């Protein structure tokens, strides 16, 4: 049937966790030199498949063959020895080590038994240069933005993959340019005969570089298709098990500019963090924030939310001067913030889904007024339903949820506080197409009810789709603001590039 021989062959793979059958007799075939998309809704079992395959979890049953030989990696080091390089979904590097150490951990070049620091730095710089990243290999990884860390993780995995490269949502916070660099690398590897497994929720990317797709749903295999023989609609239908109405791409910008601003910032900034900027946000309005990697979008969000206090300018909420000294103060003003780095800044891993959802609401009420158990259950149940959070149990520790479902729970955390102003930093990171549509619909409804929204996204299309206005950042400074007809992909790209508007 297919001329290319199978490189990696998985048959009947099964894995259960308490309360969930994460993988139920799944088959998967990866051929040498192909780029193979692994698709499915949040919680479908994609990450689990990858983890079982690479020795993070022990499998309950099934078989994995690499080059026709059955393998059973006992741990990830074992998988690496087999030539499988992996980028796991959560950035799984070590923030306390340097960039170079992260790249070469466990295989540092040595001389006379000692790590050859100079060579390691040189190799690291060369490796990173391929991705256009000019960071100091000796700098501590944790100082860099999520995106930089992600590139480092990719570079490491690529360097490790002798036969198979596995990428679990590697592009979530990369901008278009970075994604192109990544794709070039992936294509180059594929041309060399390496098989690439690619998990993503961006269907455009699937159609752009993948040869084939395998779709999972609820831990079961739905099917394997060649991309060339597939339409977008087919693919979505396979993933969701139903058709998705395409109505989500409506946009509503320019409708509510008349209202009095909810929040206005004047000359608001912090030395060595964000240059002073002016910004107004009105109820019911969606303000997009666009910019390249490291342009200061995340910093702007943190400044507005009081994570770092501003040292210049003023902030006014509902016409009253306010001081936003801490997230607590911001939350008290009716702000909410879903951070980009969900693992370290978002989820409280060991606590249950319910507790994570009510945390912000509880914090705002104060510890003396506990949310009664029954009410908490009701809130959690409502959002689990509303956002379709897939969990076997609302008491399940949130770190055990799939990435996309964690993201939804974080959104629920702030929605539960009925905020008046919500800041979302890369909100759709890791969220599947179906849920994506649901969330956008939900946000639009909330905006209709008067919620103000600031959305940071690396997806310019997405920003264009729902923003009334777009703020463009460069070098930690606001360099432009687009409204009305100017809000277009082209307009934004121009502004980012620093060209004068026509």
């Amino acid at each position: 049937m297919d001329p290319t021989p199978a490189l990696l062959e998985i048959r009947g793979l099964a894995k259960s966790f308490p309360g969930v059958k994460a993988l139920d007799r799944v088959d998967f075939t990866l051929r040498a030199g192909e780029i193979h998309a692994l698709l499915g809704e949040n919680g479908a079992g994609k990450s689990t498949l990858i983890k079982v395959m690479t020795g993070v979890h022990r499998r309950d049953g099934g078989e994995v063959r690499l080059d026709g030989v059955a393998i059973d990696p006992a741990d990830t080091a074992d998988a690496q020895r087999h030539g499988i390089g992996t980028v796991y979904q959560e950035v799984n590097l070590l923030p306390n080590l340097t960039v170079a150490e992260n790249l070469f951990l466990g295989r540092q070049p040595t001389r006379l038994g000692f790590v050859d620091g100079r060579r390691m730095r040189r190799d690291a710089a060369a490796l990173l240069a391929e991705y256009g990243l000019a960071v100091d290999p000796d700098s501590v990884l944790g100082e860099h933005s999520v995106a930089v860390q992600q590139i480092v993780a990719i570079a490491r995995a690529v360097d490790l993959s002798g036969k198979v490269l596995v990428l679990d949502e590697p592009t979530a916070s990369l901008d278009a340019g970075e994604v192109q660099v990544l794709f070039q690398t992936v294509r180059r590897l594929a041309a060399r005969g390496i098989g690439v497994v690619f998990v993503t929720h961006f269907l455009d990317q699937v159609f752009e570089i993948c040869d084939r797709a395998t779709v999972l749903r609820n831990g079961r295999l739905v099917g394997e298709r060649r991309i060339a023989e597939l339409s977008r609609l087919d693919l979505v239908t396979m993933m969701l098990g139903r058709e998705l109405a395409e109505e989500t791409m409506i946009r509503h910008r320019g409708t509510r500019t008349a209202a009095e601003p909810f929040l206005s910032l004047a000359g608001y900034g912090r030395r060595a963090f964000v240059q002073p900027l002016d910004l107004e946000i009105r109820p019911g309005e969606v303000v997009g924030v666009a910019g390249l990697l490291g342009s200061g979008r995340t910093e702007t969000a943190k400044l507005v939310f009081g994570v770092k206090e501003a040292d210049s300018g003023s902030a006014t909420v509902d016409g009253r001067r306010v001081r936003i000294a801490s997230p607590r103060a911001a939350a008290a003003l009716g702000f909410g913030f879903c951070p980009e780095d969900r693992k370290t800044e978002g989820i409280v891993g060991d606590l249950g889904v319910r507790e994570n959802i009510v945390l912000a609401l509880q914090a705002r009420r104060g510890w003396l007024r506990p949310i009664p158990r029954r009410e908490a259950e009701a809130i959690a149940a409502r959002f689990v339903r509303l956002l379709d959070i897939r969990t076997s149990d609302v008491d399940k520790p949130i770190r055990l949820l799939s990435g996309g479902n964690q993201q939804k729970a974080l959104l629920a955390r702030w929605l539960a506080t009925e905020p008046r102003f919500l800041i979302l930093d890369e909100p759709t990171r890791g969220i599947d197409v179906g849920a994506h549509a649901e969330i956008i619909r939900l946000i639009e409804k909330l905006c209709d009810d008067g919620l103000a929204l600031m959305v940071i996204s690396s997806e310019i299309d997405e920003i264009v789709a729902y923003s009334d206005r777009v703020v463009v950042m460069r070098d930690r400074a606001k360099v432009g603001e687009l409204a009305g007809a100017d809000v277009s992909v082209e307009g934004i790209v121009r502004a980012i590039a620093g060209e004068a508007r026509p």
Partner: protein
Amino acid sequence: MNARHLPLLATIGVFLVAYALATLQFPNMASTRVVANLLTDNAFVGVAAVGATFVILSGGIDLSVGAVIAFTGVFLAVTIRAGLDPIAAFVLVLAITTAFGAVMGAMIHQLETPPFIVTLAGMFFARGACFLLTTDSVPIDHPTFAAIASWSWKIPSGGRLTLVGVVMLVTFVIGAVVAHRTRFGTAVYALGGNRQSAELMGVPVGRTTVAIYALSGFLSGLAGIVFALYTSAGYSLSATGVELDTIAAVVIGGTLLTGGVGTVAGTFVGVLIQGLIQTYVIFDGTLSSWWTKIVIGALLFAFILMQRGLLAAAARRRENARAGARVAAA
């Protein structure tokens, strides 16, 4: 300048400033004799603290240090009294303490239990083993042993650099090289940074854990030998609470107790700072038992505050410098 080295520099700065201040008050403190004493007297704590640095860098803790030091001394005293050659006794006891550490490491890894209790049990065990060997304090008098113990080099103006002091210095140098220049060292940092990530990146977590505690056991044993050379005796109640001294030295030296961040050199300064506090209190000599405690605590607090202050100032300067560079670029 690398941000990683800031805590170390701050710690060294604090030490130098404090030493200078102390010399102003007691000019004698500037003598080479005091400096040499600082090395000799703190040698065993220093050696053990190198081990503690690795343990703490990996996110663990080792409470058995003091008890293992005592055990080593008692074991040496008893076996040498029974006729064993000191060198053979050294080798034997180091093998025992290394194995002891390795067993604790294996328990920590295999049973997935917190190092705190495993090493607490280890502390009880080692101290209890002393009592089983003998409850007396046993002098060690053997010509070879005495010869080793009395090795020292005269340095100008009265100080004596002793063998134990040199052993400590060498241990620190080797420790620093291992921590910063070997794959094992990086694995230790990786473990302390995030155990799970380290595992996903292919660090052999189990092997490394065992090796870390074995190393700590070995260095505790070496510290015990140093202590035995220092006192020429073995005594089951000696070195109580040394584990806290080592932990304090490590943490004062800028290592985070949560793991992953710190340096071996910092620990050395931490040990010196603690020694300086002791020396200062003794030089003063007017303090009652309780004021001694209060002053030690207060000085500890002052050191930590100074360190924080310096770090904060440095961070601010860096930030401003960066801002300046940005403005210049704009």
